[in-house]
């Protein structure tokens, strides 16, 4: 096995080198800095990162920043280091010449005001140093209580407070303008004085010098008229790169007065796929040997940006299946661009098992599997998909998913009625294919008593306006806004004001007891916890809306969420459901969609969202498109190129069966029956109304059935654990069910048909496929071999066979093939 992997990587690497060689020679160089034809540096110490991009014969672009040779003439105006950083020396004009592989390019540079340092603005220049050095991180001085008496605002989102704490608090002992180097701030920062956080600054660094200068110049906060940061710009935005290559980034801060500052060295970098790339402090991205897409999140003060690298494998992509629909077209286009050939199509047996588990949350019955195998109609898969979608099992399975996300949780016995009603409401909505925007609206704007209008139960668990907005955002917009309650969202553009403006939509929710919700007449308004200012309802990124005191603001919110122009609603559902089927969101995690976490196939996500929206938010139609696609039908078995693919959907990514599905599946195979207190015998685990049955089912708990405590899909754990294996291997619950008189083993032993036939059935039931000859032979000989009882005497044949079948069943439910959907 190990050997095979080694071979694979060698092969991949050789393919890659062949691919880059094919790009041919360097034909030209381009220099990027601030986007202007002439680079202007202003003030003493001004500097600018530049990047040098080489154009190859094939048209491909490569980063030459760290390979190029730099020369400035005359040589006393600027200096340039080998990493492409241009620093001002004296006023004047110079010409920078960059050469690589015999190709050259030039950039005119002008330096002004080099005789004096420009005035320092605390918010724009000093605070970013603390962020870069990690001083104001959540684990350090940035936490709510600060650290050892010194508090900074989290990630520097509140510069005015930082200034207070730094300059005025503790009798000003943290900064010492008379001898700046002796300031406690710097002594601790360079760890000359004992510092729990260790050394955060180098004494010879620019940041250190800037701090010294700021303290020495008298600790200016800056003028109120000083420009404010408007946005940041990452250059380049995206690039197709080769395995193992690197790319220098430039990060420009653009200010309200139109000025631009190079903040490449002050920004923070973080790749979303750490297995694919690493970043350093100066904005250099280095790829590893894994093809795919990687995004690097760039943060500077309150602003975020991304660099998106596509790293093709470069293998020839031939024999793509004919696309069935737009999904295939876009997935295959990506695979072609990536040079990643997809796996072959799976067989019918795999497909019926896969699609039954994914849509209906159950194994296909023996009859269904046989019928499907025997059916020769070309549209048999479509018919299967339709019949699964029309089944009550589909409604049960997806109601289980939604019931948990909508927190249909039993916190006390009296909740039961509401929980049953809410679950059934969700189930009916799905069964009747209620348009998703209507589904959302009936929850978000739910009014009345739970007994009459079950979605009011959502408000029973989600009590406060903050929780309501956070859950709404996560459920229906795929966004996690939690951070913005207390501070500017670190990975997002959303501010506290955005947060509370969104919360204002829930400000008029009235309650009569726990079970009744109504609209309280009045002007919708929330208070920004930070500023203590009232804020009116504003949807994310939308214009403020005037809501009359008579109108329920939640209706306006639902209008906005479900509106065709909303960029988040359809995308988040499409991504959520995509993940359901492919075990990986186009954005991952599926409910953390943000600018800094881009989709791996944006065109695909856009198209899914567009189709979903145009269909009138038809959930079944979305599922139908996904399940009918050739992409969904790709085998889980990798070919020689796509084993490590986790983003491009070049194959089906196997997933462990969810707790309820697995329990029902085990029962189906071994003819067991779980009993749930108070429910009719034979109730399936996917039909359980709420979380209250977890406590009495170790099986459900150990396999990660969620407790309906959050709106996050992550509450359902899909990992495998030792406890799970042990439970299936040797728990009393499973052993008793295997050896029960009504169990499958007893039935099969008593069944007069030949063992071979019965074993075939068993395989069909568990795996939806016929056994291989070898499997059959081993199983048959195991069943038929004579056994002795505990007394050492041979057992009667019936009893011996029954034990044999118990063993076979035990083995089957413990195979990965059974435990996984593949």
């Amino acid at each position, binding site marked *: 096995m190990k050997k095979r992997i080694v071979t694979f990587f060698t092969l991949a690497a050789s393919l890659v080198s062949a691919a880059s060689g094919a790009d041919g020679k360097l034909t030209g160089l381009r220099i990027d800095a601030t986007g202007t034809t002439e680079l202007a540096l202003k003030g003493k110490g001004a500097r600018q990162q530049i990047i040098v991009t080489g154009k190859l014969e094939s048209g491909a672009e490569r980063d030459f920043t760290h390979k190029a040779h730099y020369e400035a003439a005359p040589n006393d105006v600027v200096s340039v280091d080998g990493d492409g950083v241009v620093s001002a020396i004296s006023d004047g004009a110079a010409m920078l010449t960059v050469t690589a592989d015999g190709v050259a390019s030039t950039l005119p540079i002008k330096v002004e005001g080099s005789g004096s340092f420009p005035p320092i603005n605390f918010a724009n220049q000093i605070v970013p140093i603390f962020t870069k050095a990690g001083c104001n991180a959540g684990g350090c001085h940035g936490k709510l209580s600060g650290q050892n008496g010194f508090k900074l605002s989290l990630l520097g989102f509140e510069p005015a407070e930082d200034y207070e704490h730094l300059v005025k608090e503790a009798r000003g002992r943290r900064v010492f303008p008379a001898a700046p180097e002796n300031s406690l701030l710097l002594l601790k920062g360079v760890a000359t004085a004992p510092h729990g956080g260790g050394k955060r600054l180098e004494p010879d660094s620019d940041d250190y010098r800037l701090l010294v200068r700021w303290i020495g110049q008298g600790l200016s906060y800056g003028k109120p008229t000083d420009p404010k940061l408007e946005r940041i710009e990452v250059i380049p935005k995206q690039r197709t790169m080769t395995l193992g290559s690197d790319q220098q980034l430039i990060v420009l801060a653009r200010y309200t007065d139109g000025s631009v500052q190079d903040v490449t060295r002050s920004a923070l970098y973080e790749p979303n796929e750490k297995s694919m790339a690493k970043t350093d402090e100066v904005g250099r991205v280095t790829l590893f040997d894994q093809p795919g897409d990687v995004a690097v999140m760039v943060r500077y003060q309150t602003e975020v940006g991304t660099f998106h690298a596509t790293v093709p494998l470069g293998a020839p992509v031939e024999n793509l299946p004919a696309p069935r629909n737009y999904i295939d077209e876009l997935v295959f286009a990506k695979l072609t661009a990536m040079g990643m050939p997809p796996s072959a199509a799976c067989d019918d047996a795999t497909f019926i098992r896969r699609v039954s588990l994914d849509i209906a949350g159950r194994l296909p019955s023996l009859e269904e599997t046989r019928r499907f195998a025997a059916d020769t109609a070309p549209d048999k898969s479509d018919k299967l998909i339709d019949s699964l979608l*029309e*089944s*009550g099992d589909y409604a049960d399975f997806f109601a289980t998913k939604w019931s948990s996300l909508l927190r249909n949780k039993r916190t006390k016995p*009296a909740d*039961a*009625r509401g929980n*049953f*009603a809410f679950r*059934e*409401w969700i189930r*009916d909505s799905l*069964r009747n294919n209620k348009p998703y925007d209507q589904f959302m*609206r*009936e929850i978000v*704007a*739910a*009014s*009345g*008593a739970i*007994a*009459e*209008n*079950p979605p009011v139960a959502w408000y029973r668990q989600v009590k406060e306006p903050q929780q309501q907005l956070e859950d709404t955002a996560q459920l229906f917009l795929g966004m996690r806004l939690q951070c913005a309650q207390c501070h500017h969202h670190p990975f997002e553009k959303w501010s506290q004001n955005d947060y509370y403006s969104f919360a204002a939509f829930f400000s008029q929710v*009235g309650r*009569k007891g726990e079970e*009744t919700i*109504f*609209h309280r*007449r009045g002007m919708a308004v929330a208070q920004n916890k930070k500023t203590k200012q009232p804020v009116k309802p504003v949807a994310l990124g939308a214009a403020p809306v005037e809501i009359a005191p*008579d*109108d*329920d603001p*939640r*209706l306006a919110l*639902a209008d906005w969420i479900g509106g065709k122009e909303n960029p988040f609603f359809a995308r988040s559902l499409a991504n959520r459901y995509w993940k359901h089927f492919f075990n990986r969101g186009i954005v991952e995690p599926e409910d953390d969609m943000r600018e800094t976490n881009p989709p791996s196939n944006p065109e695909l996500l856009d198209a899914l969202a567009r189709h979903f929206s145009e269909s009138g938010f038809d959930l079944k139609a979305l599922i139908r498109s996904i399940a009918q696609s050739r992409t969904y039908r790709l085998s889980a078995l990798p070919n020689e190129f796509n084993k490590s693919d986790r983003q491009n959907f070049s194959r089906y990514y196997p997933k462990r069966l969810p707790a309820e599905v697995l329990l029902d599946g085990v029962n189906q195979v071994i003819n067991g029956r779980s009993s749930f207190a*108070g*429910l*009719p*015998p034979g109730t399936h685990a996917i039909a359980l109304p709420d979380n209250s049955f977890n406590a009495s089912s170790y099986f459900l708990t150990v396999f990660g059935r969620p407790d309906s405590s959050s709106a996050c899909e992550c509450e359902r754990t899909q990992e495998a654990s030792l406890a799970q294996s042990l439970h299936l291997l040797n728990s009393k619950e499973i052993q008793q069910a295997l050896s029960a008189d009504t169990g499958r083993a007893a039935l099969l032993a008593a069944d007069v048909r030949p063992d071979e036939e019965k074993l075939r059935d068993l395989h069909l039931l568990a795996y939806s496929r016929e056994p291989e000859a070898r499997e059959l032979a081993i199983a048959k000989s195991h069943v038929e071999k004579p056994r002795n009882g505990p007394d050492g005497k041979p057992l009667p044949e019936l009893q011996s066979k029954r034990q044999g079948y118990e063993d076979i069943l035990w083995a089957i439910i413990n195979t990965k093939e059974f435990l996984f959907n593949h």
Partner: protein
Amino acid sequence: MAIPCALFFIAANLVSAQLPSLTLATVFPAGGRSGTEVELAVTGGSIEEIDQLYFSHPGITAKKKPEPNAFTVTIGGEVPVGTYDVRVASKFGVSNPRVFVVGDLPESVESKPNDKPETAAELSGDSLFNGVVAAAAFDFFKFNAKKGERLSVECMAAGIDSRLSPVLAILDPAGRELDASRLNGLLDFIAPADGIYGLRLNDLTFAGGPEYGYRLAIRSGPRVEFVFPSAGVRGTKSRFTLFGTHLPGSSQANISAAGGRALEKLEVEIDVPSAGETRVDGLCGAGSVMAEGFSFRFKGANGVANPQFIGFAEGPVALEQEPNNRPEQAQKLDLPCEVAGQFYPAADSDCFSFEAKKGDVYWVEIFSARLGLPTSPFLLIQREKADIQEAYGSDANLGGPRFNTVNGDPVLRFESKEDGLYRVTVRDLFGNARNDPRNGYRLVIRKEKPDFQLAALVEFPPSKPDDRGAAPRALILRGGGTSAVRVIAFRQDNFGGEIDLNVEGLPPGVTSLPSKIPAGKTEALLLLTAAESVQRSIGAMRIIGKAKAGSIDLAHDARGGTVTWNIADYNNDPVPVRLTRDFPLAVNAAETAPVSVDPLEVKQWEIAVGGKLEIPLKITRRDEFKEVLKLKAYGAPGIEAFKEFDADAAATATIDLAAVKIPPGTHTIYFSALTKGKFKGKDVTLTVYSAPIEIVVKAETK
């Protein structure tokens, strides 16, 4: 599922420390077809010697069968289709009521298990099935339907005092769900093809047992979803429009029921009676006492429809005219008036305008939640753009935790501060996303009209000082005993006057003194006392309240109310209650009251303000009740200051008006104590009431 056996009213144990009292838990079947005989079985508490059923309609009679708790009920052909009350009675008294429905469909009674699709009970044609759902189980049925046939399936449960929350599903021949109903036990089904369909029934939370009975009707006969307007003027013949299905001669209504299916409409002329009728059908919510009106059942050649409540309007009823959602579309009204409207479609807002002169006073009231609708109306009065007044449903609970009268309907007093045009906006706070045309309302804007209505409840006998239990009870008097009825007043338009309470129709040997609900108060206890030697009896009794509002004499009969199921602690669970269709008194001649407290003399006791009144009392103890009684006095304003005193065999109650400031006038007072003892060998706690005592406090003469 299983036929209700004598499995019994477990919760009765919770109050076992009280005197034994007949309680009726279930009747099965809970109804029958008009003009037929029905075999009926009952369960309950202390019902071992029951020999009689007592119905709220005299045309329904019963004979005891030899086997325990079984009766043969004869429903006279003259008994109208409707909902009635039934009680069990024995020599020990009478029980709380349960519903007994008289229908027009052929009925069957569950006789074998139908908890699996294979054992589904067959429903043939228009018919009704009486069954009981077991815990953690389904009941299955099958029926034939032709393609396009529209059938209404109705599972009566709450309406027959059952604990069942029915969930219905129609299944195709392959067992797949075609349609489901989870809220009200109603399904409007149109068969997609000829065939045999399945019907599955279960309790929402899969609870079950004898208390989870149902009446499941499947019919192609008339069904009325709502009537518009929902009020008419007493003693007139008025036109109404019925909206529903299978209404002969109807036309398409261009309106859909909540389930999305089209409704028909039919205009009919209805005789609005001049007095309310509460012995058949009717509203049963505790807060509905104020909604006067009558129940109407449409009768067509194809059968009798479900009942619709029609209220009594003060004057001609205006109909809401859409569009009126926005202030500039406000519909003009001439006051006083009544408007019939609908909270429809979703987020409907209805604006009306009216002229008022400075100083005009009107009461503005909505009837909707009290009509049994799941609404929460809201009222807003504005002048131009300024808000003048708004009203949400009142939180006032007149009946306390054992008879919660809170309902969602708002009422407000409007006094015009200047001449001009005003606007009233009506909205359903629950209706922002709901499209259900059944959710109608009556908007009443009337000149101030002080009035009241009464409800009578059997006073719950506590078994400990802070007893928070509640249980179904009926009014029973033992020989020599005194029982209490709590009468609560629903006052209209700030009516604050005193309400005199009198009882009529008492059997021989039972006496009562007039009582009164003091001015501004909302309740009083009414005491009935039986002589030591009495005859067994059971019969209707009237409690009449009389008052004066200015020069107008007001008089109203009290409507009965009852707890329907036992509750151990009303702080943990709401107490289920309803209005009753009768309020009988039973005299128990087989037992005597364990303790009696009587004045030595029956007379008017006179006393001057500031004086001292001594009332010698006689304490009679019959069973093993030996505790000294710690008597407190009640029944007159200011009497709270009277200090509790000990009474053993004989005692004198001394009321010192220097300390106990009872205002001048005639008052009916009584003494009461909680005491313990043994009744028929069992430990019992009971509240002893003295016989009522009339005192006259005379003002000081100067």
